[in-house]
């Protein structure tokens, strides 16, 4: 019972919504890059939103179901097919024993998620199924998935909680774009930007460089400057923190970021927009729009309200309401 990796992908790992409570030991949260995608497919499947799933990059693994299973795909469109039949994302499917799941082409997005009803049988470390590649712990043996690995299912067969024919509301539907406008809040060192750089920050286009991965995205633009170069002591950073490097370029910290950093924190990307960024990659571009702390909290609350409607819809469809 489970799913076997018949052909390994370039970087496929087990991730959930991350590991909290251990930052003080230098252990960072890890977790999926696209949090919204994971939450959406888990809700559709009737799983807890934080349930672990397989995060895939392209080329992705090829899987064989060793037993019947209800599953869903979310995030990037890698042209998935089950027994050569094309699959959509954000929809519930059932695989039979022996069915082969393949991903043929990267159409758009950069990270695709495969979740199964009831979740994967993965031992938690410090309360999370997320893989920590640096410490080589968590997830499946602390590493990326390789040929021959078998992931067990926590429950047998179909789930009664999954909503078979539910359509996700358009407002929740992630749309991919080559250029994104991301909303940010000011960071502790924001006020240290020169007036010219402050304006440039909201006027310029920032290109995502090849040096962008699960740890962070390095962006390229005309350099930004601070009023003074006074060093800051290493201190905690967060998912979505925008740091200004000494060469005037900026880096956005992503899921595998270190817990602390010593570069000026000029801004923070709001969490719901980080999922959009997680689906961008080298060659795509960004610009930024400043919102207040109050607005950032409201954006988040609005998104959570939309998700709670979906959650009620799933319960209704699956006859639990």
């Amino acid at each position, binding site marked *: 019972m489970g799913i076997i990796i018949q052909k390994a992908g370039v970087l496929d790992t087990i991730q959930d919504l991350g590991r*909290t*409570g*251990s*930052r*003080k*030991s*230098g*252990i*960072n949260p890890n977790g999926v890059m696209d949090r919204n995608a994971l939450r959406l497919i888990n809700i559709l499947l009737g799983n807890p939103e934080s349930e672990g799933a397989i995060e895939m990059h392209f080329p992705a693994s090829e899987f064989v179901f060793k037993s019947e299973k209800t599953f869903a795909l979310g995030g990037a469109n890698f042209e998935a097919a089950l027994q050569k039949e094309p699959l959509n994302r954000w929809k519930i499917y059932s695989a039979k024993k022996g069915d082969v799941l393949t991903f043929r082409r990267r159409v758009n997005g950069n990270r695709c998620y495969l979740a199964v009803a009831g979740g994967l049988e993965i031992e938690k*470390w*410090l309360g999370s199924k997320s893989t*920590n590649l*640096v*410490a*080589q*712990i968590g997830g499946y043996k602390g590493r990326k998935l390789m040929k021959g690995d078998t992931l067990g299912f926590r429950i047998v067969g179909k789930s009664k909680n999954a909503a078979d024919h539910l359509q996700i509301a358009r407002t929740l539907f992630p749309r991919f774009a080559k250029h994104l406008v991301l909303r940010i*809040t*000011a*960071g*502790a060192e924001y006020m240290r930007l020169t007036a010219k750089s402050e304006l440039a920050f909201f006027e310029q286009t920032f290109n995502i460089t090849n040096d962008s991965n699960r740890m962070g995205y390095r962006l390229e633009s005309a350099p930004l400057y601070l009023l003074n170069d*006074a*060093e*800051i*002591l*290493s*201190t*905690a*950073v*967060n*998912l*979505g*923190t925008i740091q200004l490097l000494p060469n005037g370029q900026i880096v956005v910290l992503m899921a595998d970021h*270190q*817990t*602390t950093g010593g570069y000026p*924190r000029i801004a*923070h*990307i*709001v*969490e719901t927009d980080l999922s959009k960024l997680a689906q961008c990659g080298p060659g795509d571009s960004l610009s930024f729009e400043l919102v207040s*702390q*109050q607005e*950032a*909290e409201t954006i*988040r*609350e609005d998104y*959570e309200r939309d998700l709670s409607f979906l959650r009620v819809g799933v319960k209704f469809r699956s006859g639990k309401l």
Partner: protein
Amino acid sequence: MEGIPKYQVFPLGENALIFDFGSEISVELNKLVNSLARAIDRNPFPGFIECAPGYSSLTIFYDLFMVKRKFRTALTAFEIAKRLTEIELQKLENQPEIKTITKEIPVSFKAGNAPDLDFVARSNSLDQEEVIEIFLSKSYRVFMLGFLPGFAYMGELDSRIATPRKQDPRTVVTKGSVGIAGNQTGIYPHESPGGWQIIGRTRLELFDPSKEPATFFDAGNIVKFVKG
């Protein structure tokens, strides 16, 4: 500590805030930050997730809905969490000091284990033996953990051996490497990229996920290096 030192509070995104007591390496401020972290851990407010104590700052992560649900006010979750932390801060005075734990770390300074020992010596106009002697002559405080799982930032080094980070960070630093960065010292618990000047190596396991806690060091520990 006499009274509460001046501080600033900043948001760190929509789910965290920083209490910043200044940008200096100070034992007093570090003790304060860690006492405050312990106080909040003991008495967490609704929505509190975790504390991450730094040199002289404390970062607090929270769930903004949980924070807002409890208090019917137009204040942001940030403003509420800030006030809740200030309440703990004001109660801090007269807290008993916690017992300090001293840990001994055996270090090999053999050439193969100490690729930057010569550079540290030359840039401070010392010979290698003098660097080792000065390095071993005092004990260090673990100010914070960060960067990598189990990596301890320790200080402060004798100014005679303080050395800036490497201009060109290494892509691979060997696990167990003991490094210098400015007046800080630290040990790499994992193989990792890194820019610290490597002056030795320990065989001690500093991170063991099968143990609870997984990390060898805690903020506030005193560390004594010995030849070994």
